[in-house]
């Protein structure tokens, strides 16, 4: 006979406790703010879904969301192919392996705000290396504090410099796990380099690439510190990404209700797109 014993639930308690403190309680606070209006003094007024409606209808939100998708889209389009290409050209044996790996890992070890500050100085006209070189040596009129295109190029290049390594390292891990026999078989089958990439390397990298793309999507979609330190969202609003806009609303204007509603929408979009990515990329495996 089967014995029923509900005591096992107690084992779940510590996890429940942890999750409650690091996710549920803070999240519920945000939910709480998002449906109320407050004027301080701990006075709250029920607002229903008004804040959500306001945010979803606001042009400012649409613009920030558009910039955010453009930024993330460009980041993925640049970093994923570039990362794969670099991983493919890295040595698989010998002393240069560790040299390359360390060189690749270095940018990722630098804290976000330091990266922002570094690139800020790097791109300053007259003083910064890149700023001086572009303006005074190449004669390009480059000033990212005034020109939106320059600002965009700068944040994209900065992110590519900071995070392409992640795609490189993950792709490289996928590549070195391919047994030598696959390459040998492909050689005797007369496969071209493109076929080897298309039918051996890419399929074997698929799992790690899914992780790489997901991580790069989430990180770039939630990016805050580096562009904030570098451009502060400017010039104008041209590089005001979602998170920068959110912080402006929450801490600059102290509109806690709309900010809370916006955070929840932001969170929902991130979650939804990540889920879509994951489902689409694993579609073949599930069948």
């Amino acid at each position, binding site marked *: 006979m089967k014995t029923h014993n509900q005591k096992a639930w107690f084992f779940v308690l510590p996890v429940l406790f942890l999750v409650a403190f690091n996710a549920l309680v803070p999240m519920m606070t945000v939910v709480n703010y998002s449906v109320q209006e407050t004027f301080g003094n701990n006075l709250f007024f029920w607002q229903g879904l008004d804040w959500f409606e306001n945010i979803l209808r606001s042009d400012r939100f649409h613009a920030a969301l558009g910039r955010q998708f453009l930024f993330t889209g460009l980041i993925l389009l640049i970093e994923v192919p570039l990362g794969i290409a670099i991983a493919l050209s890295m040595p698989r044996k010998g002393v240069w392996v560790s040299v390359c790996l360390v060189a690749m890992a270095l940018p990722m070890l630098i804290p976000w705000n330091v990266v922002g500050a570094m690139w800020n100085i790097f791109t300053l006209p007259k003083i910064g290396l890149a700023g001086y070189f572009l303006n005074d040596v190449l004669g390009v009129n480059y000033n990212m504090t005034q020109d939106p295109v320059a600002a965009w190029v700068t944040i994209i290049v900065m992110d590519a410099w900071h995070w392409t390594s992640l795609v490189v390292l993950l792709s490289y891990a996928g590549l070195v796990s391919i047994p030598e026999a696959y390459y*040998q*078989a492909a*050689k*005797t*089958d007369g496969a071209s380099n493109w076929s080897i990439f298309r*039918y051996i390397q890419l*399929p074997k990298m698929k799992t790690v690439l899914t992780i790489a793309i997901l991580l790069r999507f989430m990180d770039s979609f939630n990016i805050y510190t580096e562009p904030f330190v570098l451009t502060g969202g400017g010039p104008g609003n041209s590089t005001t990404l979602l998170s920068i806009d959110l912080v402006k609303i929450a801490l600059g204007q102290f509109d806690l209700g709309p900010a809370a509603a916006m955070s929840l929408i932001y969170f929902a979009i991130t979650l939804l797109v990540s889920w879509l990515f994951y489902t689409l990329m694993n579609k073949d495996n599930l069948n």
Partner: protein
Amino acid sequence: MAKITLSNLRHSYYPAPEKRDDYALKNIDLDWEDGGAYALLGPSGCGKTTLLNIISGLLTPSEGRILFDGKDVTDWTPGRRNIAQVFQFPVIYDTMTVYDNLAFPLRNRGVDPAHIDRRVQEIARLLEVENMLDRRASGLSPDNKQKLSMGRGLVRDDVNVVMFDEPLTVIDPHLKWKLRSKLKELHQRVKHTMIYVTHDQTEALTFADQVVVMDEGEIVQIGTPVDLFARPAHTFVGHFIGSPGMNVLPCELRNRGAFFQGSPVPLEGPVRADASGRAEIGIRPEFVTISDAGLDAVVVKVSDVGRHNVVQAMVGDTKLAAIIEGDVPHKGESVKLSFRQDQTRLYCDGWLATEI
């Protein structure tokens, strides 16, 4: 299809080999006849895979040439040599269907689609995978995956040689037998030259017409399975093939006669005139019998292996195995052992030294 000649082949994995032991392959001279079924048999690390990779072109030998039908192909790429190789672990293209996997080597060479279709259907029928042609290759069971790897090797009808590098390692025992007979059948139908590398004597002896036995980078004997069993050219072959292997008994050579522990042992024929060095008697357990007269021995172990009994006995300080059918002695019993004369051979420094 081609006759493959290996001429004065030596290979070392060291950049500057000095001693003889630095070589993974020590001077190989060998012809593989067109259309033959060969097995390359030897213990792990004896250089089998190295030799195979040299034939396929994945490795370039340190010294020596490889000829296909007399043409020097030593510097050719594996693709150009037009050979096929099946590896220990199944190599399949995961994202392709079974059909596309089989068609891949042909498509890469620009064969016309109608011919590709004909070949793929034919090979699929031979391998009994024709009902899975539309399936994704990644979902197949390990034995079907290995069949597919073999199929990719067999699909080209102009291939010079198909090489199998221990292809049944990952296959379940009950399927091993099936795939092995399938391979044998395939060889009889397609008549490609096939080289089958293994360390398993049963696989080698059932598959091949000719078995090449290797040890420590050298070829010690080439022959039919019967040759290898009946007259091993080297004590290594005698010991490696057979279960249990040949008894190798240290002996003394006096006036071209063999003496084992002081008593003379009649041999199959005269000892070669130039025989010298460490002398040993080789006698297979199958030809050792318990009789009324002979060497005094004490039985130390009797194992019943089903069809017969394997008796281990000590003659002085030398251990000897005998295969006995019918009545068996008990452990600890004193018996007399005799050797069948026409199966008793002398080996000097490991090599056969008696003539018939």
